[in-house]
């Protein structure tokens, strides 16, 4: 299944693109697994995700924590802590 990954703010800048569609390999079950796998994909990803604890994640436009299962996610967004308001 294809999953759309969306990036915002400095996560977007460091990875170097606003979004991409990926095929998740077997064994990527949680958000934490996804972040680990993405870091292995190149320098930009490593720079963006080197401190995974600060990365906020939304699945299908709802906040989730890093233990959340990602099976069936159409859209997963990664971004820094929010600074709106």
């Amino acid at each position, binding site marked *: 299944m294809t999953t759309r990954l969306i990036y915002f703010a400095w996560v977007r800048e460091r990875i170097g693109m606003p979004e991409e569609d990926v095929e998740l390999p077997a064994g990527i079950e949680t958000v934490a697994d996804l972040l680990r796998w993405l870091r292995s994909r190149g320098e930009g990803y490593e720079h963006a995700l080197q401190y995974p604890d600060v990365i906020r994640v939304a699945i299908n436009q709802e906040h989730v924590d890093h233990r959340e299962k990602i099976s069936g996610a159409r859209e997963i967004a990664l971004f820094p802590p929010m600074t709106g*308001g």
Partner: protein
Amino acid sequence: MSAVLVATVRIQRPDFDVAAEIAALTQGRVDIGAVVTFSGLCRDEQGALSALELEHYPGMAEAEIGRIATEAGERWPLQGLTVIHRHGKIAPGENIVLVVAASAHRQAAFEAADFLMDYLKSRAPFWKKEHRTDGSEGGWVEAKETDTQAARRWKRPPSE
């Protein structure tokens, strides 16, 4: 228990008109005794900022603010609630965000607006980047721990 609150949530580039938003909630009604508005503005105390650029997550921004507004409507007896958050480049002195809460009584209106702002700050998917007057990028504004703590004030005990 009470009528379901229909909140208005808008994410937009243009400025908003506080008086028009109050009027939209109160016009023709006699059951509203208290309207609290919060306007958040772009500050520049050092004189080095040319603008804040607000990036947001379209779709989720509306959805998440809608969820926060629904929670406010469940926690306080509100007659109306409007939240407007701007995006794009915003110069010092300009408006960024507006919350309008209307209720029969003042405490509900105050608390709901205060709650909305704390939750917006910590949960609404917006990010601010600074642009400096010298033409350089000032980088992304860092989230404040005080904002996270402010949002925690509203946590309800799990037994409720």
